[in-house]
């Protein structure tokens, strides 16, 4: 017989091992689904791997997909550190995309356009995130619910925009006008889609880590998240910390939208985000809310997505499997987190 026993301390290697174990468990669990779909498990995963990380082009495609999830992952990780439950990265991303598209469509020198797009997108995301944070701080409204519901509000506002004022008059498609060519983010490697935004995302992660670990704001975020009562007693303005966290988190999620507009789609359409905001939650959890862990976690999910499509084409397993893998990875990680607080002990083994 086994039982759970409260851990008295958590070994350091756990932080690294847990996500890996969760990912391994996910792949094992999902292999059952592949088998049911009638494909060879090894073969399917093989296709997935080679299509996502097999050659340098595949790697750049995976990185391009990882970039928005790095941003949303960072947004969620920082928010969750303060226990500001921001489930609204999706809406913040969309707001960032709309704002940057708006700015990018105005003729001006390219560099200026890119900087202003980033600022506008970050500001839009931050403003959206400020809504649930303000509701929580002022009226004690549950931030999980309000930030989640706001996603739909933003999504339908975006739809109204591209079905209405922004609608393409020639084709009749619900898509926004494209941004100026000069505002398109530079491609870093000829023949790929690897754009400047990807590098910015990769730099943002260590910056966020530094912010959390080495600044007084980061200290206040951590303390507020762990024990708001002690934070307040210690002289920390808990409400202000929550609002600052929301601004920061929303700005990061908004930048995810900026990257998609400036580096990938160059315009806004209804499916500009295949749920990158929600994937950010999975990324942040896999990363154990550590900004440095967000990068590999986002690359893993991106690889599953790009690889999932190729696998579907090659083996006939539905591409939805990549969604299943994402969901299972989140569940596996949540279960794995249990083992940071508890360990399994065999009972009856003692004298």
């Amino acid at each position, binding site marked *: 017989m086994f039982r759970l026993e409260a851990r008295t301390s958590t070994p350091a290697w756990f932080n690294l091992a847990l996500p890996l174990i969760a990912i391994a468990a996910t792949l094992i669990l999902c292999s059952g689904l592949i088998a049911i779909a009638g494909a060879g498990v090894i073969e399917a995963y093989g296709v997935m791997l080679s299509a996502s990380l097999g050659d340098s082009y595949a790697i750049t495609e995976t990185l391009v997909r990882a970039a928005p999830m790095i941003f949303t992952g960072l947004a969620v990780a920082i928010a969750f550190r303060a226990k500001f439950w921001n489930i609204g990265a999706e809406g913040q991303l969309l707001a960032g995309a709309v704002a940057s598209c708006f700015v990018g469509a105005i003729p001006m020198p390219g560099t200026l356009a890119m900087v202003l797009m980033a600022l506008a997108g970050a500001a839009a995301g931050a403003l959206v995130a400020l809504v649930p944070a303000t509701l929580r701080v002022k009226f004690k409204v549950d931030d999980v619910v309000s930030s989640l519901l706001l996603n739909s509000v933003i999504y339908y506002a975006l739809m109204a925009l591209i079905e209405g004022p922004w609608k393409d008059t020639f084709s009749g498609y619900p898509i926004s006008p494209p941004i100026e060519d000069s505002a398109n983010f530079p491609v870093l490697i000829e023949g790929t889609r690897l754009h400047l935004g990807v590098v910015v995302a990769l730099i943002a992660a260590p910056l966020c880590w530094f912010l959390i670990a080495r600044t007084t704001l980061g*200290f*206040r975020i951590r*303390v507020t998240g762990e*024990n708001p009562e002690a*934070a307040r*007693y210690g*002289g920390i303005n808990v409400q202000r910390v929550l609002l600052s966290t929301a601004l920061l988190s929303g700005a990061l999620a908004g930048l995810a939208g900026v990257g998609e507009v400036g580096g990938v789609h160059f315009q806004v359409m209804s499916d500009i985000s295949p749920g990158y905001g929600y994937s950010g939650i999975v990324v942040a959890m896999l990363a154990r809310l550590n900004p440095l862990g967000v990068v590999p976690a986002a690359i893993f999910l991106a690889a599953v997505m790009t690889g999932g499509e190729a696998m579907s084409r090659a083996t006939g397993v539905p591409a939805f499997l990549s969604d299943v893998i994402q969901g299972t990875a989140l569940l596996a990680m949540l279960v794995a987190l249990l083992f940071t607080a508890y360990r399994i002990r065999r009972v009856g083994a003692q004298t």
Partner: protein
Amino acid sequence: MSAPLIEMRGITKIFGAVKANEAVDLSVAPGEILGLLGENGAGKTTLMNVLFGAYAPDAGEILVEGRPVAIHNSADALAAGIGMVHQHFHLAPRLTVLENLLIGIPGKSGRIDRARGLARLDEISRQYGLSLDPNLLVSALSVGEQQRLEIVKALFRGAKLLILDEPTAVLAPSEVDGLFAALRSMAAQGLGIIFISHKLNEVRALTHRCVVLRHGKVAGRVDHPAGTTSAEMARLMCGHEIVPPVKEASTPGAAVLTLDGISTAGHAGMLLRDVSLVVRAGEILGIAGVSGNGQRALADVISGMLPPRAGTMTIAGKTVTQFSPRELQALGLGRIPEDRMTTGLVTNLPLADSMVLPRIGTEAFSSKGLLNPAAIRAFAEAQIKAYDIRCPGPMARAGALSGGNLQKALLARELAFDPKVLIVSQPTRGLDIGAARFIHEKFLAMRAKGCGIIVIGEDLEELLMLSDRIAVMYEGRIAGTLDSADATVARLGLMMTGAGQTEEAA
């Protein structure tokens, strides 16, 4: 002597580098009250947690009525007749007394058997003199009543041995008598009891036998606690003599903190009505009173957590009535909260973080918004050394420290900055006698340096020993203030009940 009710043999429990218990032997006979003593961090709670199944021991065995038993969780412990009352209660506040008793007790065909529960509660109440209204919500119970419910809960589940971990730390002195009467009656009817306390006079009055732990090992046993002195027991616990501190005469200086006509909106323990008091430099003002008479609100107002509705507060002549905790701190106010786990420390973060928390934005620990990790660590290490805080290190989780060591950490973080005014609630609650002495000496040294100190407490002997003056709180008011030269336990006790309103108003 009859066969022991329970016996622990060679119990060892190791946490990482700490041997919390090492080869501990202990037994309790039916009808016996065993005292378990030891310094903070000696391993008392750990040993009891092993007995109650919360921790698996690394070595050793447990026998119940002579038979070895394996106890893997609290259900096993209860099945073996072992009940435990933790210092932090495990009750469901939104349920009634009776419902709390019946949680997890299956009735006939899965339904809850209220009638049988009521009958059993009535029986236990009468048998041991532990009366409780079965229909009250737990959230409406006082701390003393909640503790009584925890005891009844254990008896309800058929406990033959009852473990009480520092039960008197949360009780008012008047409630202690009631608890002791119930415990004596249980022992007289054949139950065994293990009683943990740092208050040696209580231990001498109540227990039949004592086991003293030091650094996880049995340091000694006392067969006639009533026949020994507290000093002797203290020597067993600490390994050396404990001398009471001397309070030198001092002439108080100018007023450092004044409250004038402070009132708060609130209820019960959170209500203040027209409270005025003065603390001068180099003076200790004690605040006595039965808990729930506004002491909590007073501490919250002074530390900036609760803005008053009326009245003014000044520090060193400056009006600070609506100041935030941070602004008050910047003016030299030091604060030590009553509830160290929830208000004082961040249990999930490194101890060092909690120790610098109130001053993280100051130059000592950061500059231009960037932390100075080396300074934070050095500060924590220095305090750990200066206050003999027993812990694996500054980067260990604060939650892993024993209660007494947490308290020392909180004191250290305030006293390190030489506050001009210090407000402390229950400063030595849960501290062993050596640590309490150490804290007393610190307060007296601060007083000699000209700090004005307010000590809110329920231990009248401690207040009398430390204070220059003692104010008594009753129903949110200052019922009177006595010079400690004129004050006695009896006189204070009378004022605490609302009788004998007297004297100058501070």
